[in-house]
């Protein structure tokens, strides 16, 4: 009994140590992955938020070309940071559609004027319903939709310069 007691502190420490190692390897701010990856895109019907740009109606989307679906908001700072990369992707011929979360037409208009407009369509998701149905937990997030309309990848956080080739490769694979 006493023998065991003597080694108890070390055993407890080993336990705590293992926990902490686990905590370090998998940081707790690990982002919530969407359960929708690998599943077909849910049907979304969102009205247009800015004039002259259509909203989102996935039922009417032509199959056959992969595309990016960007979840963003004008009030989101990382969205400003990722704007140049999205423009680059657009120049590379990628079709980018967007969902504006909890936003207003005037704000989105101003955001596009300031940061450039990479989007083909922008849907208005005032109540975050479409965002939730995608399994997205924050802004910005970018989903890769393949030519059959299946979500094949989810990029969480702002798209950085080093992410552009990765996204292009994912789109190439999604053809």
């Amino acid at each position: 009994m006493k023998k065991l007691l003597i080694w108890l502190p070390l055993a407890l420490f080993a336990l705590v140590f293992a926990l902490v190692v686990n905590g370090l390897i998998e940081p707790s701010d690990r982002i919530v992955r969407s359960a929708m990856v690998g599943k077909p895109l849910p049907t979304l019907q969102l009205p247009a938020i800015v004039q002259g740009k259509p909203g989102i109606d996935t039922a009417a989307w032509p199959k056959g070309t992969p595309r990016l679906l960007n979840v963003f908001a004008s009030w989101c700072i990382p969205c400003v940071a990722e704007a140049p990369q999205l423009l680059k992707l657009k120049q590379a011929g990628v079709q980018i559609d967007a969902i504006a979360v909890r936003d207003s037409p005037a704000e989105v208009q101003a955001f596009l004027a300031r940061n450039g407009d990479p989007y083909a369509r922008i849907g208005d998701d005032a109540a975050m319903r479409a965002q939730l149905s995608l399994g997205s937990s924050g802004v910005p997030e970018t989903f890769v939709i393949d030519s059959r309309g299946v979500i094949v990848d989810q990029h969480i956080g702002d798209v950085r310069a080093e992410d552009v080739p990765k996204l292009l490769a994912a789109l190439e694979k999604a053809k």
Partner: protein
Amino acid sequence: MIAEAGLAALWLATAFAIAQLLLGAAAARATDPAAMLPGVRKIALVQALFALLAFLILIWLFVTSDMSVLLVAENSHSLKPMLYKIAGAWGNHEGSMLLWVTVLAVAGAGVALFERRLVAETLSATLAAQAAIAIGFYAFLAFASNPFARLNPAPADGQGLNPLLQDPGLAFHPPTLYLGYVGLSVAFSFAVAALLMRDVGPAFAKAMRPWVLAAWIFLTIGITAGSYWAYYELGWGGWWFWDPVENASLMPWLAATALLHSVNVLATRDGLRAWTLMLAVVAFSMSMVGTFLVRSGILVSVHSFAVDPTRGTFLLALLGLYIGGALALFGARVGTVTQGATFQLVSREAALVLNNLLLSVILGVVLIGTLYPLVAQAMGVQLSIGAPFFEKTAVPIALFLVAGTAAGPLLRWRKDSAQALLSRVTIPLAITGVAFALFFAMTGFASPIAVLVLALAFGLAAASIAPLWKRNLRRTPLPIYGMVVAHLGIAVSLAGMAADTLFKQERLAAVAVGDNLTVGPFKVTLTEVRPTVGPNWSALEARLQVQRGAAEPFELVPQQRFFPNPPTNTSEAAIATLWDGQVYTVLGAADGAGRWQLRLWWKPFVTLIWAGGGLIALGGILSLLGRVLRARREAREREEWA
């Protein structure tokens, strides 16, 4: 050039630490260790001087605003007041780690310079252990957190220091806590050396005791000051938030408090040998765990992209090495430590064992609460643990501890009778009962636990003075006074905590200029809201006229400050300290219609919390003074004999 000199000093300190480890280990096994000891002592001193030099150079870089140094550019600004430039040196990760290891080296040098009672083998092993800890943290600085890294090209100016940290109290808060944290390293090294050399006894305990006391005093002051800082700077009116960083400072304190009591038993009665060794290891382990938790960012999960994973891994490896190593050594060797003096179930020793057990349980609870989010995460759940958990678990155990604190000093060493104890605690018990009835009648069922705490505080106050009863006060040794004052401090602090819970009054309202509010016995009138500027901030301030009854009104001026570098808003609470409590006022946002949010508290006797903390530290100081004076006297007497 100067930054490179700092780095060079750091490397030289590392080299001397390695020499200290090798020579110390050699001396511990040599046939004539006393001959080698002076060399080890000198090396320890030189190592500390180089570490100190590196730290002073870092301060110099901050004072001169050398923006070509990355750390200065990231954390300082040329327009900052001088005090905060200096404090900026340790108000960041790299600088604070440098301070940490500097304190470690200086504490080691202190042992090398002043320790004369311990046998040469054990002292050499202690210095070697101290050097072994230092080497790991020097390596951490050199490979994962170089404070002297350059930035090329140098920016025109720096990015400033977090405004929350721009406060004179906080400037000196981390160094105080670090002195406590790292001071415990000495106890750790002593314990490791004692286990290695199989030399556990009163001499070892007497050598360790002043270091534990000193570290504990700094921890007490650091925690008290930190709590007051959070209270007035964060503007929430609370004084303890059970936040991981606070817990990180509380855990070593709990362990050190237990150690402090058990080392006394070992020094005077030669009992509790294994306990003392264990607690010495645990106390510094908790310091390292605390440093790790704070520095790795593992528990602060606000999308912490700034946290460098290599740092966390490096620190964790050091932790595994030192704590794991010491605990393994404990397991392997403690069986060979012979049992010390024994004692009966009702005795001072038994009360101190109870104290150790209860403190350890509280420590365990706080540790579990702090780490539980990691456990949950390992099981795939994300959660955080807040104040309710700690209040439900730690507080009830603490109540038993308070009762023990009251009764313990009234027990005799080795053997006593329960009946005698009962007769000695009659008065404190009666006071507790009367106080409970009185306060319960005043507040009812609002918070029975707080009423109990308050009543126990009165009982403890009476019981803690009792050891002086019928004693010749002029011949009573200082350590006894130390104990009385420290225990009284606990009572005072508890009374403040309970009074804050039971009697505080809060008002939150939107008011226009000219309106008035009442909070407690005070009438508060908003007379003006106006802009103002400071050295590196601008602010809106509200002028509040506060009046109690027909007394002379006084003015309080809470502010909302804006710091441009980096852009941050802080709210500066305005607090009036009266003899019977504090009026605490915070200016909130404007509602756009000419009204301002005002948050007012009347907190009767809340100041007792920190006054009690001060008394606890004072008790430690008295005790330390008594020990040091006595050791000197004994040394002098030995010389006269020789």
